[in-house]
């Protein structure tokens, strides 16, 4: 549980840390689209360079990023294998029934692998350097135009910030319930897969029950303190867009142009 990197904030004061959350979210989202633009080797190399550049500027050790990759390892391996073994085209090196190894398949797998890993690296860089609260504020600010279509953007962001706020409490409580059940002789992480899954019931049910009770309480407290979702809300923390944030977006635009240029030449 403690090894989960995704969605955790690493305090620091790097160039990336200081960027406005809106800029970071926009760049992160843009990168996901851009990674599909890379269609040749030059593009591929550019993606890797960009990803490692970002990681370098966060001043967080590369080891942390690779640890963040670990939970997705099997998914990546599976997709890459699928690409290698079932894509035909180019030179055929080896085949066995429907399974074949071709030059085209290998190149295709390389692209898939690059997309996967660089996207994870860049998005991890965003979440590692942005406080969860800033992230919700940024998201809220970016989604605000959707209010024109009567979408409950404010409620969404309130829900998100409440959810994030209670993650530490939930972790605490998980530890407590696990301790209590171990004291009653429950053993976790042993036995067959089915047994391990069954062993989780005594943890999750109390957690669910506790969360429901707490949610109810929180709703009451918000009511009592006069929270009303339909009223306009002001915010204590103001996001400030700086020149550096504009630069970030410009760099992103440059990256798009470069990739597009590679495609035209290639």
């Amino acid at each position: 549980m403690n090894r989960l990197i995704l969605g955790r904030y690493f305090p620091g004061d790097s160039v990336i840390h200081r960027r406005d959350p809106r800029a970071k979210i926009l760049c992160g989202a843009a990168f996901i689209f851009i990674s599909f633009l890379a269609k040749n080797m030059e593009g591929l190399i550019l993606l890797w360079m960009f990803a490692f550049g970002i990681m370098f500027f966060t001043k967080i050790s590369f080891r942390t990023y690779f640890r963040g990759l670990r939970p997705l390892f099997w998914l990546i391996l599976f997709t890459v294998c699928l690409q290698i073994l079932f894509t035909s085209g180019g030179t055929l090196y080896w085949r066995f029934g429907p399974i074949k190894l071709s030059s085209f398949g290998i190149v295709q797998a390389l692209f898939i692998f690059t997309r996967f890993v660089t996207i994870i690296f860049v998005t991890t860089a965003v979440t590692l350097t942005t406080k969860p609260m800033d992230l919700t504020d940024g998201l809220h600010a970016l989604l605000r135009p959707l209010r024109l279509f009567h979408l409950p953007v404010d409620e969404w962001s309130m829900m998100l910030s409440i959810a994030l706020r209670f993650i530490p409490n939930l972790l605490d409580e998980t530890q407590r319930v696990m301790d209590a059940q171990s004291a009653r002789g429950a053993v976790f992480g042993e036995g067959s897969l089915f047994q391990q899954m069954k062993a989780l019931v005594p943890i999750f049910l109390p957690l669910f029950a506790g969360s429901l009770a707490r949610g109810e309480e929180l709703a009451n407290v918000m009511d009592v303190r006069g929270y009303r979702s339909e009223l306009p809300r002001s915010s204590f923390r103001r996001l400030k867009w700086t020149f550096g944030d504009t630069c970030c977006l410009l760099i992103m635009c440059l990256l798009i142009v470069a990739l597009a240029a590679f495609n035209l030449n290639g």
Partner: protein
Amino acid sequence: MAMQIKLEHVTANYKIGPLLKPRVLDDVSLTLNPGRITAVVGSTGAGKSSLLKVCNGLLIPSEGHVTIGSKEINSKTSKQSLKTIRKHIGMVFQFPESQLFAETVGEDIAFGPLNFGTDQRRAEQLARKALQQVGLDESILSKSPFSLSGGQKRRVAIAGVLASEPEVILLDEPTAGLDPAGRKELLTLLKRWHDEEGKTILFVTHDMESTARFAEDVIVMENGSVVYHDAVRPLFENTRQLKEWQLDLPEARRFQLGFEAQSGIHLPHVCLTEKELMDALIEVGCV
């Protein structure tokens, strides 16, 4: 065959997530008297809960070792032997009702015994017995634990620990959040269980009233160390020392001190309950 718990130079660190609290227990050595009720008191963060956890193998000492009966817990003890230790040492956590999970009260209470390898029929018997020990009616066995009242949930959770028939029971603030009547009732139940079965009880509390009334021995903790471990009565004699440890006095004792200061009459012994106070007042001829 009461079980002896012995801590020798135990130092333990507490880790939750990325946060490490070093030395929550700092070189603690003590021997728990078997078959007695011992209260653990001290200010918040003094290491009371950690002391309990270390006795149950939930917190593993980084230095030193804990001996429980013939078994030893140190930094190399395996999961399996921890389980055998936990069979004999029951632990009731703060707000234990938050651990209830099963569909029926009966299933929840039988969870412990089943984990420790008793068969279904025997587990059901034990559940019935435990329910009786905490003063609840058998009719709730088939009810959902989530449908019970707060006090009933607490008792069911405690029954879930008693059902494993432990030799020693550790309780972390068992009466927190209960009304005075519920508090007294719960402690009386525990005392009865102790008297009938002759088992050891170690409980953490902030309430000096329950310490004075129910405990035989007291452990006072401060900054991860044990600063007092002896019988209850001598503890409440030295009021200056108590103030230093930021501990309160039971009401009867407070009355006694006030009375002695105002009247100049000295009562023959330290009074911890109203009954003792009354007897002492009659004895010196004030009433």
